[in-house]
């Protein structure tokens, strides 16, 4: 397997690194502390072309492929995890339009989504529905000329700031999985209320809200893909999203290691910098090894995703789950070790690692909990 990047891709990752170091990293704490979406950062990604990495040039994209994209998600996340998460969720949502949308939908939205003028949110989870697709409650009732939506969505990242939602609803709960249908809906449509903002353990720079649909009428052309085929759209989007989250977590881990590494060389105890102690060295070595392993897993999944192209049968479900699972489990461990190495300073809000550690927990939970990832991996193993 060849993960080597072309000269083009290398230059692009180099540029993203530079932007992460110079523009994103210095403001990470400030943004998270203010619990506010950073339009500056999002526009920066749009202007640089980073939001368009997975999209064809005719829609304003740069079409650089999954490998360069996921490496960029890692770099952006190392700079600012909130912005990295937004990059991943936004790209995954926009990609659903590219893959399943009509020409008109693509022409209406993609360009604006690439430039950073339009932010997109992925509206799938509900208060009582997460991993079990059959439990989806939000209802899209067929009416004259379109659909009428009723129901509540939960844990929607960037719901407050997004312009456009990709929404999953069922035509009839009795149909089970076969009722699930996907829609593209503008946020300012009548009957949509972005409700309660969830106070969270971490990742406060990415607001998470409930969305309530009350007799929300949407015309027929909001349908994304076919009626009753929404689960397919969700699963395909999520396998890409998992690679994004794996890259996001890897970036967070790398930042934690960088912070701990720098600290360990400055902090003097017993007359030597603490990095001279083997106990600290072993921690640093294990952290780096875990990060590298997670990086290789997501790179492999990205490589396969790129190779799969539009062929849904080749979608690397197992590899994406493995990357997500491993990189995010590692992330919590690596961040916790970074806090440990930095001791009281690590635990203090004066240093960024406690913030990384609080955020790292959610990477094990969202985009399919790691338990579900393990189910998916096992299912693929047991397939005949």
């Amino acid at each position, binding site marked *: 397997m060849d993960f080597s990047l072309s000269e*083009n891709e290398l*230059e*692009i990752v180099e*540029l993203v690194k530079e*932007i992460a170091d110079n523009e994103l990293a210095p403001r990470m704490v400030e943004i998270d502390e203010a619990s506010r979406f950073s339009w500056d950062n999002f526009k920066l990604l749009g*202007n640089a*072309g980073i939001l*368009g990495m997975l999209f064809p040039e005719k829609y304003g994209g*740069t079409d*650089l492929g999954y490998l360069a994209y996921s490496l960029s998600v890692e770099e952006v996340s190392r700079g600012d995890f909130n912005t990295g998460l937004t990059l991943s969720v936004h790209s995954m949502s926009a990609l659903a339009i590219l893959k399943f949308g009509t020409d008109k939908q693509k022409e209406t939205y993609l360009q604006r989504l690439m430039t950073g003028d339009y932010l997109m949110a992925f509206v799938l989870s509900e208060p009582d529905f997460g991993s079990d697709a059959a439990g989806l409650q939000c209802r899209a009732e067929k009416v004259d000329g379109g659909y009428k939506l009723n129901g509540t969505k939960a844990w929607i990242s960037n719901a407050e700031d997004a312009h456009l939602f990709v929404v999953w609803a069922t035509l009839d709960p009795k149909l089970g999985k076969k009722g699930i249908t996907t829609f593209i809906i503008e946020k300012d449509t009548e009957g949509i209320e972005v409700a309660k903002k969830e106070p969270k353990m971490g990742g406060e720079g990415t607001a998470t809200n409930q969305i309530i649909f009350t007799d929300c009428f949407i015309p027929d052309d909001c349908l994304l893909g076919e009626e009753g085929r929404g689960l397919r759209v969700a699963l395909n989007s999520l396998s890409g999203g998992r690679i994004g989250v794996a890259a996001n977590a890897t970036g967070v881990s790398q930042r934690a290691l960088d912070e701990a590494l720098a600290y360990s060389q400055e902090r003097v105890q017993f007359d030597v910098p603490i990095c001279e102690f083997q106990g600290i060295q072993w921690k640093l070595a294990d952290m780096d090894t875990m990060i590298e392993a997670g990086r290789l897993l997501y790179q492999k999944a990205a490589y396969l995703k790129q190779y799969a192209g539009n062929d849904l049968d080749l979608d690397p479900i197992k590899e994406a789950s493995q990357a997500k699972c491993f990189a995010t489990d590692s992330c919590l461990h690596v961040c916790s070790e970074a806090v440990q190495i930095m001791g009281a300073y690590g635990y203090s809000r004066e240093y960024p690692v406690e913030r990384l550690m609080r955020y790292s927990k959610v990477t094990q939970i969202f985009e399919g909990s790691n338990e579900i990832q393990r189910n998916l991996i096992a299912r693929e193993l047991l397939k005949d």
Partner: protein
Amino acid sequence: MKIAVLIKYCPDSEAVIKVSDGKLDTSGVKYSVSPYDEYACEEALKIIEAKGEGEVVVFNVGPQKNAKGIKDELARGADRAVHIVTDAEVTCPRYAGELLAAALKEENPDLILCGWKGIDYDLGVTGIKVAEYLGIPHVMIVTKLELSDGKANCTRQSDIDEVIEVALPAVIGTQKGLNEPRYPSLKGIMKAKKKPVKTTTPAEIGLERGDVRAEYTDFAQPPSKQAGKKFEGPESAAEVVKLLREEAKVI
């Protein structure tokens, strides 16, 4: 409107330059376009964007490796480039100016922008030499630039801001504060590959030997600072006075 931007490809501002055997050791050093030249390129792009027509042409003199720096500016948005390829770095700014002026004559730009100095040797001479060889005016250390029919109003930074009007074409040396240089975009990076870069050589220009009047003959690392001495308590005053007199020789 055609704007020429002169760029220098220098060791990065964070690079640590070592000296060995009286020569500079630049092995492993990262190079980038001198930051002052980035202000020049940004200003050129902004002027052309505001006008809606015209082109930005990047000029560089130096070895093959400088192609990377040229490409960076093309990725930022410059339209094309002229690279005078030399075997080694041209350290004499007089000669560099001569070569650039010769290449600029062929292009006849309406305005020439360059950083007021390179961040490597900090001489600030090349731009002035270019103006001299072309017989046109120059203003250096410019923090604000306004163009109006054939003239440039330049604000020159000193203790008091000076506003200087020059007729175009002129060489304007850009200073920090003029603008905020943009990042290249991913699209820009991909497009840069296809943008034309004309290469030439001093021999082709007919200046294989320039009017070099000064050459670097030796480099040496300044002696490293000695650790400071600490004195505590009033009883050390006599000792301090003694050392100030005998060692530091300041009293």
